[in-house]
């Protein structure tokens, strides 16, 4: 899971870096650049966190009120 998360985070970083470079070169308009970052920023954040989080843990049933 953590290796998978690292791959997703790196993919997000690479796509974002690529679009930044293309935008600076004038090949990608601002709206497309913004759209890619809007999609990639959450993926990078959650990907990095899932990558470096502590291992272990199993799904549980939280308090459901009954």
């Amino acid at each position, binding site marked *: 899971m953590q290796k998978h998360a690292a791959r997703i985070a790196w993919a997000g970083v690479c796509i974002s870096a690529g679009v930044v470079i293309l935008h600076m070169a004038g090949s990608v308009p601002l709206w497309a650049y913004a759209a890619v*970052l*809007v999609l990639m920023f*959450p993926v990078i954040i*959650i990907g990095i*966190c*899932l990558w470096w*989080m*502590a291992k272990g843990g199993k799904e549980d049933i939280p*308090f459901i*009120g009954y």
Partner: protein
Amino acid sequence: MIAELVLATVFGLLLLGIHRKVIARIQRRPGPPVWQEILHMLKFSFKSTWVPATASATLFIGVVLVAIGIWTAAFFVVFTGGSLLVVFAIYMLHKIVEHGFGLSSGSPYGKFGGVRSVISAASEIPLFVSVAAIAIFTRSFTLSDIVLYQQVHGPLLFIAFPAAIAMYLVILSKMPSGPFSIVESKELVSGYKTEHFGVWRAGLEVCNGLKTTVLFSTFILVFIGQVPILWMVVGMVLLVISLSFACALTPMLSPFDSVTVQTIVTGLMLCYGTFLYVGGVA
């Protein structure tokens, strides 16, 4: 722009830390250090994380991504001088996201938090009638036009003071420990975010940081105008201090009182907008 996004997130979390510190000092408590919210976010990101057995996994994880994504979009809209209506559409989306957070978890605390989020949306969103008052003066909903208007006529804070109060109330509604923070009321544990722990909560903290920076900078741009970045930072700190006083000195209202107060203000704002429009004040 990624660097700006990260800076905006960290600064927003710092503002929330200042908020907690000021509230604590007013209540004669030492309070946490101002960078506590940043540490909080980092702490949650390191914690072991999973999806509860009772949760809808897709929605449980998806809302975290959507929450960060919508405020990233709002950040772009504000800093490219886009439409104020888009910023408030995103604010409305955030209410739906809060609802999704609560419902996805399968916990009654989360569900009640989600329901309260919808109740509070019914009274917070009409407060955006203040945008109509601004448009009567500036003849535009675009932030860049509103900024240009203020360069000629002076800050809208003085020209359209009631609209500033209504917008201030919208921001106050989103502050933790505020009189209108019914979605995070302690009888609901942590409200809609009760079951989002670990990495999911870290994502939510990132969203909160971005949201704070976006809402505060929107308020300053709309009611004071374009100022140098240092003054923007000073303005945002002063804004958070004033909000902290309001939060520290006011008890949390019950859900129906919260809705009533906000609805009364909306009614007053409608009267103000009608007065401006019919009276041709602008």
